[in-house]
C-alpha cells in the first residue's frame, strides 16, 4: 500500500531522516513512536507531500509521490500536529470548503458532513468560529477534515495531544473503527496510546528506525526482563529466599519490603521457561498466605527508553 525506500531528508546540515525504509500494508494501524525531534513529523510530512525528501522514494497506492503528488493526496487524509485550521471560518463553512476541494458532489456533501458531525461529535459547534473552539474541539474538527473524503490512508500527527481522557478514548475508538478497513498512520509519544490502538509499532530515533513490529513482538524480541511479583503473609524473608532460589529459571529473588507483615518479593526470571506452576507449588507447601501473584513483562516504556536513550 505504501512503500518507503531509503528516505533521507536534511534540513540544512541537520539530518532529520536517515535512510528510512518501510512498507505499510492495507488495514494496518501503524503507530510511529519516538522522542521529540526524532523525525516523526518529518516522515509524515513527506508521506503527505508537504515536504520533498532529499533522497529516496515514496509510493502509495501505486503512485510515486514525485510524479503524481495530486493523485496520492486524493487518497490521503491528513491531520497535522495541533490542527492548524483557518481561524476566521465557521466550522460548518470550513467543512463545506474542505468537501468542495475534495471534490465531493453537492448531493453527497450534506450527508457526509452530517455523518462526520455525528462521528466526531461536532453538532454543538457547527456554527461557531474556529478560533473560539477549545483545543479538543479543534482537534475533532481537524479529524473530521481529515476523514472528509473517506480516504484510504489516514495520517494523524499526535491526534490525541491536548485532549481530556474521555476525548482520548473517543478518538481512539474512532481510529480503531476506521482502521478495520483503512490504513492509519499515527504518531505519538504517548506509549499507552500505541498499546491501546496500534497493530504495529515503529520506533524511530534520530531519523532511524530502531524497532518495528507488533507490541507483543517488540516485548519478546528485546532482551526481556520477565518477573513474577508475589506478596506473602506470615513468611520470613530468608525462608522465602531459600525456598525459591533453587527453582530453575529464577535468576534472583529480591525482597521489596514489608508492610503490616506482608512481604513483597520480585522473582526475576528467564523468559525461556514458564515457572509459575513450580513457584505456586512450593509456596503451597508452606503455611503462608499468598496475597498477590502477578507476572510482569518489561513494559513498552522500558523498551522505548532503551532504544532511544542517548548513547
Amino acid at each position: 500500500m505504501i512503500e518507503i525506500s531509503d528516505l533521507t531528508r536534511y534540513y540544512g546540515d541537520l539530518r532529520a531522516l536517515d535512510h528510512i525504509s518501510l512498507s505499510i500494508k492495507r488495514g494496518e494501524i501503524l503507530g510511529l513512536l519516538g522522542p521529540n525531534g526524532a523525525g516523526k513529523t518529518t516522515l509524515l510530512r513527506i508521506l503527505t507531500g508537504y515536504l520533498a525528501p532529499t533522497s529516496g522514494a515514496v509510493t502509495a497506492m501505486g503512485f510515486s509521490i514525485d510524479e503524481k503528488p495530486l493523485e496520492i493526496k486524493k487518497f490521503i487524509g491528513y491531520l497535522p500536529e495541533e490542527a492548524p485550521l483557518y481561524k476566521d471560518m465557521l466550522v460548518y463553512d470550513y467543512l463545506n470548503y474542505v468537501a468542495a476541494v475534495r471534490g465531493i458532489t453537492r448531493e453527497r456533501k450534506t450527508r457526509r458532513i452530517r455523518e462526520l458531525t455525528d462521528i466526531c461529535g461536532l453538532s454543538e459547534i457547527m456554527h461557531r468560529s474556529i478560533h473560539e473552539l477549545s483545543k479538543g474541539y479543534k482537534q475533532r474538527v481537524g479529524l473530521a477534515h481529515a476523514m472528509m473524503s473517506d480516504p484510504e490512508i489516514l495520517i494523524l500527527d499526535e491526534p490525541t495531544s491536548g485532549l481530556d481522557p474521555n476525548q482520548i478514548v473517543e478518538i481512539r475508538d474512532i481510529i480503531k473503527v476506521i482502521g478495520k478497513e483503512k490504513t492509519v498512520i499515527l504518531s505519538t509519544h504517548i506509549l499507552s496510546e500505541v498499546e491501546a490502538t496500534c497493530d504495529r509499532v515503529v520506533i524511530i530515533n534520530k531519523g532511524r528506525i530502531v524497532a518495528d513490529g507488533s507490541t507483543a513482538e517488540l516485548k519478546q524480541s528485546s532482551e526481556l526482563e520477565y518477573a513474577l511479583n508475589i506478596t506473602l503473609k506470615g513468611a520470613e524473608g530468608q525462608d522465602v529466599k531459600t525456598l525459591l532460589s533453587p527453582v530453575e529459571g529464577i535468576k534472583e529473588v529480591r525482597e521489596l519490603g514489608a508492610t503490616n507483615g506482608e512481604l513483597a518479593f520480585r522473582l526475576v526470571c528467564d523468559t525461556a521457561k514458564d515457572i509459575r506452576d513450580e513457584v505456586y507449588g512450593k509456596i503451597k507447601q508452606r503455611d503462608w498466605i499468598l496475597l498477590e501473584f502477578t507476572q510482569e513483562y518489561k513494559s513498552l516504556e522500558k523498551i522505548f527508553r532503551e532504544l532511544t536513550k542517548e548513547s
Partner: protein
Amino acid sequence: MFMAGNVINIFKKELRTYFTTPIAYIVIAIFLVLTGWFFFSTFFLFGQTELRSFFTLLPIIFSFVIPAVTMRLFSEEFNIGSYEILVTLPVSLNEIVLGKFLAGTVFVAMMLVPTLSYAICVGFLGQLDWGPVVGGYLGALLLGAAFTAVGLFASSLTKNQIIAFIIGMIVCFTLTMVDKVLFFLPESMLGFFQFLGADYHFQNTAKGILDSRDIIYFLSATFIALYMASLRIQEKQ
C-alpha cells in the same frame, strides 16, 4: 495542468475570508476616503469635468492599499500553519497561487466599484468624455492585478504580515515612481527605465489610449510576479 474547480474553490474561500473579517471594510473605507478627498479637494478649483486627478493619484494610493490587501494571503497561512493543510489537499501549488491571486484582484475590483460614483457625479455636472474614464478603469484593473501579484509574491516570502506589507509596498512604490526619477540616469538607459514604470503605462491607458505595449507590460508584470510566487512556494518544500 489547472483544474478550474480547484482554483474557484480557493478563490471563493479567500474572497469570503476578506469579508468575514474586518480587513475588507477597513481597507475599502481608507481607500475611498483617500481617493475621494484627493479627487474632490481640487475638482471644483479646476472646474474640469474629467477624472484625471483621480487617475493621476491612483497608482500611488494603490501601492499602499494593495499590499495591505494581499499581505495576509500567504503570510497568515504560514504563520498559523494552515498552509500545511492547504498543500496536503489535492490541489496543485499553481492552483493555490492562482486562486489567491484572483481573490485579491476581484477584491481590488470591488474596491474600485464605489468610485464609479465619482464618474457618475461628474457626468451630471457637465460633458464627461467617457473614453479616458473607460480607459482609466481598464488600466486600474490591469494595474491592480499587477500589484496584487507583486503583493502575493511579497506575502509568499515571509510569515510576518507586516514584513509582507512593507516589501510589497516598496516594490509597488518603486514601480510607480521609477519613471519620475529618470533625471538621475544616463540618457542611454532612459527608455528602459521608463518602460519599467507602472505609472507611465497606466497614465497612457488613463488618457484613453489602448496601446498593446501597455497591456503587455501589465500582463507580463502580473505573470512574472505570480511565477516568482509559485517558484517560492515550490522551493519551500
